[in-house]
């Protein structure tokens, strides 16, 4: 028996079954998203003060005679106005990016990416490090700190921007670090503003990728026409084992050339896919550019979206042996950026390259934009400010949304935004947990009644 987990001796004829590596693509994207959310929740629990105490904490505090902390609320109109301003700024910046890409100003975009990654790591990373040092009372003198921080920031920024020259683990860790720091910064916004912002970004993502005039769709079309990749920050899961890719190709060639795909093929595509195994593709030189204008009230923050060109990949897969190069270009994912403008003038500005949306890379691994990482973690971090029960519920909702988006990606075979489904499910589960579930569970477990 091939699987090591079973201690019972089995039929020696059984080789590795289909269960061994199915779904590996998805878990390779679920683990980093989980890590990012976990780090943000840890940072939030260590560093932030709670917005409103949950019933259990309040009841325990009341029995001990401690005073409860009342969260300062901000009002809804301000939140809506802020969110709207944010979305308008993001739209304008995406159009600007599309224009720059159209004029082939790649040095501008690269500089922008690099600057923004470095600024996030340096400024935000420094702030978070200082907060952690003071909260955990770790002894570190100023000189060492001044030496360590720029070095670490520079190394991580380099790892994030030049994936070809560093080990892939370091590159992925640097991207996750950038996402964690940005998401933590976002959770510092007031509560209603954060929620309004999340919902607005989800709606914007949906509109920008799917509407005909949407900026991200325009940018994607440009990238596909030119067979270029838009420079942006994107998390790419490690490529899957090439052996399965060969089997996949054989299966596709032997299968029917019809356009209609049964559920089996789609599931197989989503779970066991590796489209490119021997074309010798190495991760494309993704250039990340960042520009920061510290001190400027209006800073733009780029975000990018990914799109998949699956339909062209299917046809080219049939002749995969002859045209490996063409195949990898077809499957290449275009990325787009959308700058975001800081809503509050008193906060220092920074910009980053993030990406939104989900797609496939040339090596067949799933790519997820860094903007998705960030907004998922913002939702979970904000849930952590209330209570951990909401954290677990929102985490499950977001992962479910991610799974649904991947299935939709396999069905529709075109660019899809990754934010709307997950954010919707996350918000719904947060509201349901906070209103319905918490009371029920606290009632039952404080009486030690479980089922």
């Amino acid at each position, binding site marked *: 028996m091939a699987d090591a987990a079973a201690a*019972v001796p089995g039929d020696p004829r059984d080789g590795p*079954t*289909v269960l061994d590596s199915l779904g590996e693509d998805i878990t390779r994207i679920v683990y980093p998203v989980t890590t990012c959310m976990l780090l943000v929740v840890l940072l939030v629990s260590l560093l932030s003060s709670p917005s409103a105490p949950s019933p259990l904490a309040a009841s325990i505090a009341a029995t001990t005679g401690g005073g409860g902390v009342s969260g300062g609320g901000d009002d809804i109109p301000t939140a809506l106005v802020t969110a709207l301003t944010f979305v308008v700024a993001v739209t304008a910046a995406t159009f600007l990016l599309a224009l720059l890409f159209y004029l082939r100003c790649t040095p501008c975009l690269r500089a922008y990416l690099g600057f923004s990654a470095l600024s996030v790591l340096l400024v935000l990373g420094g702030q978070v490090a200082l907060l952690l040092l003071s909260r955990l009372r770790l002894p570190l003198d100023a000189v060492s700190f001044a030496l360590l921080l720029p070095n670490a920031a520079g190394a991580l920024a380099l790892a994030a921007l030049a994936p070809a020259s560093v080990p892939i683990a370091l590159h992925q860790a640097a991207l996750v670090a950038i996402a964690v720091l940005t998401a933590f910064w976002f959770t510092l916004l007031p509560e209603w503003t954060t929620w309004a912002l999340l919902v607005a970004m989800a709606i914007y993502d949906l509109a920008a990728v799917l509407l005909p005039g949407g900026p991200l769709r325009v940018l994607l079309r440009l990238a596909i026409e030119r067979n270029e990749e838009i420079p942006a920050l994107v998390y790419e899961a490690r490529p899957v084992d090439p052996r399965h890719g060969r089997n996949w190709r054989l299966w596709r060639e032997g299968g029917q050339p019809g356009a209609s795909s049964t559920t*089996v093929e789609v599931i197989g595509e989503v779970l066991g896919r590796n489209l490119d195994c021997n074309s010798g593709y190495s991760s494309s030189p993704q250039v990340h550019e960042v520009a920061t204008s510290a001190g400027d009230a209006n800073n733009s923050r780029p975000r990018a979206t990914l799109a998949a060109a699956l339909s062209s990949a299917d046809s080219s897969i049939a002749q995969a042996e002859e045209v490996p190069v063409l195949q990898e270009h077809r499957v290449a994912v275009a990325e787009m950026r959308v700058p975001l403008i800081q809503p509050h003038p008193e906060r220092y500005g920074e910009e980053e390259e993030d990406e939104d949306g989900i797609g496939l890379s040339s090596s067949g691994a799933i790519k997820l934009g860094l903007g998705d990482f960030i907004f998922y973690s913002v939702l979970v971090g904000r849930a952590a400010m209330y209570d951990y029960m909401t954290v677990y519920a929102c985490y*499950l909702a977001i992962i479910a949304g991610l799974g649904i988006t991947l299935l939709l990606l396999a069905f529709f075979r075109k660019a899809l935004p990754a934010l709307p489904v997950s954010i919707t499910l996350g918000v719904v589960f947060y509201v349901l947990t906070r*209103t319905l579930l918490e*009371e029920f569970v606290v009632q039952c477990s404080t009486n030690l009644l*479980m089922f």
Partner: protein
Amino acid sequence: MTVAAGLGYALIALGPAFSLFAGVVARKPFLVLTLLSSTLFWLISLIVLSGIWRGFLPIKSGTWWAYAILIITSVALQEGTRLVFWRLYKKMEEMLDAFADRISKPRLSLTDKMLISLAGGLGHGVAHAVFFCLSLLTPAFGRATFYVERCSKMPFFLASALIALGFLVIHTFSMIIAFNAYDEKKKCDQIVVPVVHLAAAVMTLVNLAPGGCLIGTPLLLVMAALTLQYCWRVACRRLTEHQHRQLNDN
């Protein structure tokens, strides 16, 4: 009582789940996805349940029969969820077998099916432990501990961690028994699973009595051990039958 105590309680509730995850589930990505989806199912069933019961809360402390009705409805709903999960699993099994045929790999073996049911049960158990124990464990990381009036000999966190451990074992292994029973269409095993679940849940009613948790918690752990032993018997029998059948086929 400090971070160490909090971590200790969390490990009491979830330690076996971690080792099962690291040793068995994490090796096959599909099992990780099964675990996540079964956790989601359990959460949805819990939300539906709390939606139904929201109007009747908070329950006055004297009326234990209200709690009994609550427990009976909860167990009924969760067993219904298990049936739905089984139906979805059958559909997924057909699709996987068809997919395996197309890429000319062997179909799902019996061990694979048992592993999937293990991952499903573990998902249920982990969801239970997380929502009923872990989410309330946050104050345990602080400086003091907490006692409930009716259970003055054990810290509240310890009692809930032990109960969560018991239920984790029960959920995980009764899922294996249930899937085997639905597969082989054995009525007696199919009845055993809801009965065990109901018995364990009703046993926690003992905790309502003053000092009852000292009796209820060990009884629940005994129940969990019984479930484990029964599942071991069922799995061994099934696997040896399967092996004999394959040897006879050769």
